[in-house]
């Protein structure tokens, strides 16, 4: 055995371990949002009527559109992984790009939705909002924080997916070494999953 000064250190590869780590991380994300769902539950229980009134003002149309967009993007990212497994690099790149595009569309919609609310004077600390009853202030507080934090996760997801795209193009992710792509896919599904809970809680229960 020869030992040069620095070359002894091998980074070993363990795909199962990597995925296990990712699942654990997702678990903490679920708990993070879980904390907020808990707060939502407590306040909804305290102010059922005012939550209902406030929820009527949300734009169910945009919400539904965004749900469709996000669900479809979950599909495309899953297909992108499948394409990679089938050694179809081009298709994988294409599907991943579509996923990113969907994510951006989601954010654009969100932007319009939020700015419409802002123009009606409904934003944290606004006079319009502060004059409303407590339950409505809390509803909008939670609405902005929860969808905002979810939006932040979408943005982080986009950044991760762009990295994956670059990795695929540079052949760092290949058909026999794609655990990074899989893990990013898992993250993206989580972002989707959280939205699936946010959507009915804010837009549908009225």
């Amino acid at each position: 055995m020869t030992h040069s000064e620095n070359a002894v250190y091998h980074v070993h590869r363990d795909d199962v371990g990597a995925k296990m780590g990712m699942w654990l991380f997702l678990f903490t994300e679920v708990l993070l949002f879980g904390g907020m769902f808990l707060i939502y539950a407590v306040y909804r229980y305290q102010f059922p009527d005012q939550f209902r009134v406030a929820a009527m003002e949300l734009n169910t149309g945009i919400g539904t559109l965004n749900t469709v967009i996000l669900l479809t993007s979950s599909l495309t990212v899953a297909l992108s992984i499948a394409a990679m497994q089938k050694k179809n690099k081009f298709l994988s790149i294409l599907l991943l790009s579509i996923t990113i595009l969907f994510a951006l569309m989601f954010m654009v919609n969100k932007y319009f939705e939020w700015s419409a609310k802002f123009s009606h004077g409904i934003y944290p600390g606004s006079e319009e909002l502060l004059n409303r009853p407590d339950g409505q202030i809390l509803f909008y507080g939670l609405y902005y924080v929860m969808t905002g934090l979810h939006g932040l996760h979408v943005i982080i997801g986009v950044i991760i997916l762009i990295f994956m795209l670059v990795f695929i193009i540079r052949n760092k992710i290949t058909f026999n070494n794609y655990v990074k792509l899989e893990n990013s896919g898992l993250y993206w599904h989580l972002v989707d999953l959280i939205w699936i809970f946010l959507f009915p809680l804010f837009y549908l229960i009225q």
Partner: protein
Amino acid sequence: MSDNSSTVSTKSFYQQSTNKYSGILSWLLTVDHKRIGLMYLVTIGFFFLVGVTFGVLIRLELISPGPTLMDAQTYNSFFTLHGVIMIFLFIIPGLPAIFGNFFLPLQIGARDVAFPRLNLLSYYLYVTGAILALLAVLLPGGAIDTGWTFYIPYSVRSSTNISLPLLAAFVLGFSSILTGLNFITTVHRLRAPGMTFFKMPLFVWSTYATAWIQIIATPIVGITILLVIIERFFGVGIFDPALGGDPILFQHLFWIYSHPAVYIMILPAMGVVSEIIPTFARRTIFGYKAIAMSSLAIAFVGYLVWAHHMFTSGMSDEARWIFSLLTFLVALPSGVKIFNWIATMYKGSIDPKAPFLWVMNFIFLFSIGGLTGLVLGSLATDIHVHDTYFVVAHFHFVMFGGTGTIFFAALHYWFPKMFGRMYNAKLANVSIVFFFVGFMMLYFPKFIMGYMGMPRRYYDYLPQFEPLQQISTVGSWILASTILFIFSYLIYALFKGPKASSNPWGGVTLEWHISSPPTLENFHEIPTITHEPYDFSQLKEMQHDA
């Protein structure tokens, strides 16, 4: 620094680096779990001393009634900073990040943790958090003055720099989560062949249980803290009662994390105890499975008791007696451990060296802390001593007398392995005595004062408390000097101490099978495990090998 006569690489991890740099960069960019562990040791040790300094300063202020040294606002900031530093920068990361990093892979026969680069990231998150926490001291507006619990509504109203320390706690939590995630994956994926779960050393078990708490509890406080920051910046209504929010909800969410966090503090310490006692009693541990399982039991029951911090904040009576009952349940698995340790020592051939004496110190101090915990866990007595010095004394006994003592025990136990040098045993023994005396003088009077009605977090006090307050302050001097003394002789030993053999105590867990300090790859060949973890019949074979 390395000895060992084998033919393969004998260079220690100090001489070989994982990257192409040399000097300080080879440390700062290392992904070697041992170097990262040592970097944590230096950083955490530094912040510990900062925390002690704040502690000594608040004690000094209390040496006589009325203003002595600082004004009331400064006092508020100082006890808050003391608490924040000690909790988030010292005691929570202390054992897992330093000794877990260094010894968990060694004890399961692995070359590193599962995600070495993530490990380095955790370290830098820790440093970032630490800087954020202390930055608030320097910025205009003044340092945080809410107490380390950040209770609403004061924490959204106070004009001091609160967001920064809160952000710091969030970042530190993130660091803690990543470390936990790393350890869990490591334990599941990287155990040496033959090392089944029930052949793992108990330190690994307890670190594993801790890692689960880190993962499950920390996100909740993360989001809670984030919400307070958002509330401060944007005036979003979540907790602030002026906006319809519920401050008690904040307390619930805070303690849902912060109570399990006390098990993040104590479980690794219990793991270290379960390592040290068999080694120095030369006997296999009594009730191995019971100890391993009680770690998990503590981790689990620990989730269900958070509201005992809130007996006086207005909960239904039903909630209160349920939480009180559950609190008593935690005593069971803790008791299981204490009895098993004592049974291990029974008829052992005890060799009372410094690490063992530290453990004795631990058992004594921690038992006082634990028993007074029962006083706080019962509703009627808690109402009487709630928010008094009794509580301050209690949590210093469990945290400092418990985990803090074990921090020193672990340092003395593994020092020769980590650095390949030995410290002066006499100085070590003497400092244990002084530590004990200083500790008792500092904190025991607080029990009495608390019982007499001295509230915590007070800048001033009635004249009748003066004698006890003064004893306590003198105790803080003894204790702080002892701590400085310990650090000095250890640092001296680092450079001038005699070389340590690979197994100075006669331990049998895997870290004692390899050279002191270990090589970069830990094991020339990954060992195959056949023995039970504390099977001292191995010692003979090990001596043959050496």
